[in-house]
C-alpha cells in the first residue's frame, strides 16, 4: 500500500472542560476528507476523548496545554490511515503500574477504563512517558465509507 495523499494538522489546546471535543472534531474532519467510514471515525473520536481527558485530569502539567498532532494518508483501494499523537508536558506515569492496578481491581472498578477504551477503539497504541510528560500515539486504519 502506497500513500497517495497526506494531510497533517498540529493543534495546541488549552486544558479546559470539553476541549477533547475540539480535538476529536478536528481529526474527524480530516478523516472524513480521506474517506474514512463514519463508524471508524467515531471510534477514533472516542479514543481521542479519553486520551485528552487523561492529559487534563492526570498530567498535572504546568503549561496547561494538550498538544495534538494528526497525520492522515490515503492508501490504495480507498483505504486510509490516521496517526494521532496526544501529548502533555506533565509528570508522566508508570504504565505497567497503572495496568497492574487495573487488573487487581478486576472488572468491578468504575474509573480506570480510559486506556482500555483507547486500546479497544484504535488499531495500534503506544505510550511514551517520562517525568517530562506523556505522549500517546494511536493509529486507526479506515476503509472507504460506502
Amino acid at each position, binding site marked *: 500500500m502506497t500513500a497517495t495523499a497526506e494531510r497533517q494538522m498540529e493543534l495546541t489546546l488549552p486544558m479546559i472542560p470539553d476541549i477533547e471535543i475540539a480535538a476529536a472534531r478536528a481529526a474527524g474532519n480530516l478523516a472524513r476528507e480521506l474517506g474514512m467510514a463514519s463508524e471508524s471515525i*467515531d471510534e477514533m473520536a472516542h479514543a481521542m476523548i479519553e486520551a485528552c481527558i487523561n492529559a487534563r485530569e492526570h498530567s498535572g502539567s504546568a503549561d496547561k496545554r494538550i498538544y495534538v498532532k494528526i497525520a492522515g494518508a490515503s492508501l490504495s483501494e480507498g483505504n486510509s490511515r490516521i496517526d494521532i499523537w496526544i501529548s502533555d508536558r506533565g509528570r508522566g506515569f508508570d504504565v505497567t503500574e497503572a495496568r497492574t492496578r487495573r487488573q487487581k481491581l478486576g472488572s468491578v472498578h468504575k474509573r480506570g477504563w480510559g486506556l482500555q477504551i483507547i486500546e479497544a477503539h484504535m488499531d495500534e497504541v503506544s505510550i511514551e512517558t517520562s517525568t517530562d510528560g506523556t505522549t500517546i500515539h494511536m493509529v486507526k486504519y479506515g476503509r472507504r465509507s460506502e
Partner: protein
Amino acid sequence: MTDELRVALDRRNPTGAVLFTKGYINNVGGEEIANRAYELMDDGVRSLLLNLRETKIVNSIGISILIEIIEKMIDKGGKIGFCCLTPVIHKTFQIMGLANYASIYTDEETALREMGL
C-alpha cells in the same frame, strides 16, 4: 461545539419511567442523568429505561456515573435498561462491563416490552 446534555422524561407508570438523553455524557452530563434518576427512584421508580438515541458521544467518567446509577437501582431491587446506543457507545458499554448489570436493547419498543413499561 459541545452538545451539552439534556434529559427528557416519560413517566410511564408509578414504578416505571423512560429518560431520554441528548448530547455528551461527560462528568456533568452523567451527574445530570444521575440527579434525574435518583429523583425518580425516590419517587418509587424501580424500572428505568435510559434511551440514548440522541447521545453520540460519551466518556469513561460519564459512563462510570451510569454504573453508579445501576448499582443504586440494584440495591433498591429495581432494574435499569438502555436502548438505542450507537455502535461505538455499545462497544464502550461492553468494555466497561455495563452489560453485566443492565439490559441493553437495540430499540425502544423491545425495551419497553421486556421491561414491562
